[in-house]
């Protein structure tokens, strides 16, 4: 079965030979896996969430059924190293990061000073249609579209990108105090990213993977009421814009953490796929989710990266992955994946155990039907 058909069938609520796979890796994990498979290491793209579109040759060889695409920095404003000594980088949005080994962490928020709508309007915003922004996406589509499902990544759709620009504490406080500049910022970022998302859909994406983290380990980061007032109408608008380009586009939303109170709201505004079902987050239980939302939503993710993948044994991983596929994949509707990028702390044999578990599950399913 073609990977692309497997993905589309599963998302249309049909049983497939096995659930489709979409793993993503951090550069360090990709380096390890490339060495393990003895394939050349592919450098990551210059994109805000480059893990979602990078190392696709390696990942399809490992067994991924989806290929990620995204917008990159345009030709005239790549991410640049602005302070060699401190390893500070600045991207086209004006966000500054410092490299701290395995991660880039924020160094400076360019809108930390903003107190008025004018401060937002006067900011030098990126041009969504800038030259070169979609070159990598076009190449990836040309290379993989026949065989694989194309997933256009648009995570950090506006809430996260906004706090990357303003700083999280300031943004949360200004939002709770209903300061106009916060809503102006959300709208501006949302418009830019919606344009980018629409372009990626037009180019041939099968799935648009939008997202902002609204959950913490223990529950919602903001109140469900505030979410319904501030975020729900904006997300609804984004979804309707996406469907203007392709009414059949499958829409996924990524939110880490526990977001139980708003899952129904997401279903109501037309979400198709919920990601990443972070297993250790309060209440994000696969049985509960499949029983309560399985008719309206597909699921994508669900494999624990906070303990199981880095610290579990290959046997434990196989048992857990199979158990979750059985629950979440019943009657289709599941893309099996770790609940985030696999990173350097996950051993090669654990990553192999994940893939083997899915393939074995397919074999077991086939032989039980004979």
């Amino acid at each position: 079965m073609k990977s692309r058909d497997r993905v589309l069938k599963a998302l249309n609520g049909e049983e497939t030979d096995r659930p489709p796979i979409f793993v993503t890796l951090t550069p360090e994990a990709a380096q390890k896996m490339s060495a393990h498979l003895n394939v050349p290491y592919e450098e990551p793209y210059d994109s805000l969430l480059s893990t979602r579109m990078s190392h696709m040759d390696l990942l399809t060889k490992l067994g991924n059924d989806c290929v990620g695409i995204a917008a990159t920095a345009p030709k005239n404003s790549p991410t640049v190293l602005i302070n060699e000594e401190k390893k500070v980088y600045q991207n086209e949005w004006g966000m500054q990061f410092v490299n701290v080994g395995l991660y880039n962490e924020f160094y400076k928020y360019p809108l930390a000073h903003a107190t008025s709508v004018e401060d937002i309007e006067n900011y030098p915003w990126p041009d969504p249609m800038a030259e070169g922004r979609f070159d990598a996406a076009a190449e990836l589509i040309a290379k993989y579209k026949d065989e694989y499902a194309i997933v256009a990544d648009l995570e950090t759709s506006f809430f996260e990108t906004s706090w990357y620009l303003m700083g999280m504490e300031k943004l949360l406080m200004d939002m709770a105090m209903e300061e106009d500049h916060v809503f102006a910022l959300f709208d501006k970022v949302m418009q830019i990213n919606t344009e980018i998302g629409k372009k990626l859909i037009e180019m041939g994406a099968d799935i648009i993977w939008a997202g902002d983290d609204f959950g913490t380990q223990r529950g919602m980061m903001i109140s469900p009421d505030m979410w319904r007032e501030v975020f729900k109408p904006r997300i609804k608008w984004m979804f309707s814009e996406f469907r203007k380009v392709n009414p059949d586009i499958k829409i996924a939303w990524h939110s880490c953490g526990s977001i139980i109170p708003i899952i129904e709201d997401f279903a109501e505004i037309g979400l198709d796929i919920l990601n990443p079902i972070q297993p250790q987050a309060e209440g994000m239980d696969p049985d509960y989710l499949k029983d309560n939302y399985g008719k309206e939503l597909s699921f994508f993710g669900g494999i624990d990266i906070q303990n199981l993948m880095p610290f579990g044994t290959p046997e434990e991983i196989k048992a857990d992955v199979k158990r979750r596929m059985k629950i979440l994949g019943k009657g289709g509707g599941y893309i099996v994946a770790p609940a985030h990028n696999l990173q350097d702390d996950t051993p090669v044999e654990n990553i192999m155990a994940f893939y083997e578990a899915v393939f074995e599950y397919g074999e077991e399913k086939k032989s039980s039907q004979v």
Partner: protein
Amino acid sequence: MIDYAELNQFLYEGKAKKVVEIVQQALDDGIPVSEVLSEGLIAGMAVLGEDFKHNILYVPEVLIAARAMKSGLNALKPYLSEEDKKDKKGVIVIGTVKGDLHDIGKNLVSMMSEGAGYEVYDLGVDQSFEQYYEAAVKYKADIIGMSALLTTTMPYMKTVIDKFKESDLPNMKFVVGGAPINKEFADEIGADGYGADAASTVEVLNRLMAAV
């Protein structure tokens, strides 16, 4: 006269200016600092902590309230006598562990503990054993709080605890927390307490201090 219910309410709503106004008025009226602190600020933060724990309040509201609490505390501080300072519940040194720069949860714990009457020294992020140790000696810490968001940095918590065991402060108490941390991990690395959220962490601190 001071209306503590009103002060508690302004604190709850995060109205920093109002909180400072009432605190200042109370102090000008000669109301004991310790009373304003306990009835006005600590009592107000206790309600807030409970409501945060039970998902009635969320991070943005708590951040605003914590800022109001800080403003109130700053207004009080010049009036605190040596006698008042002795009443503190304990000394906490807190920080995010080495390699990890995430601090919102840690900041909430820090503010809630301060709001609950602890003397809190927040070291910030990316803290090594040496930094925790120096601060523990300098401030005569009763408890050290460690936070981590990353699975790649959480093992360092054990390093810190082990190194303290080998140091001249082998009985130092530790409370750990952060997204990937759970009770089992806390027990496994020899921590004395696990803080599931900011309000529960204050309860854990209270329990540990009561046992001292």
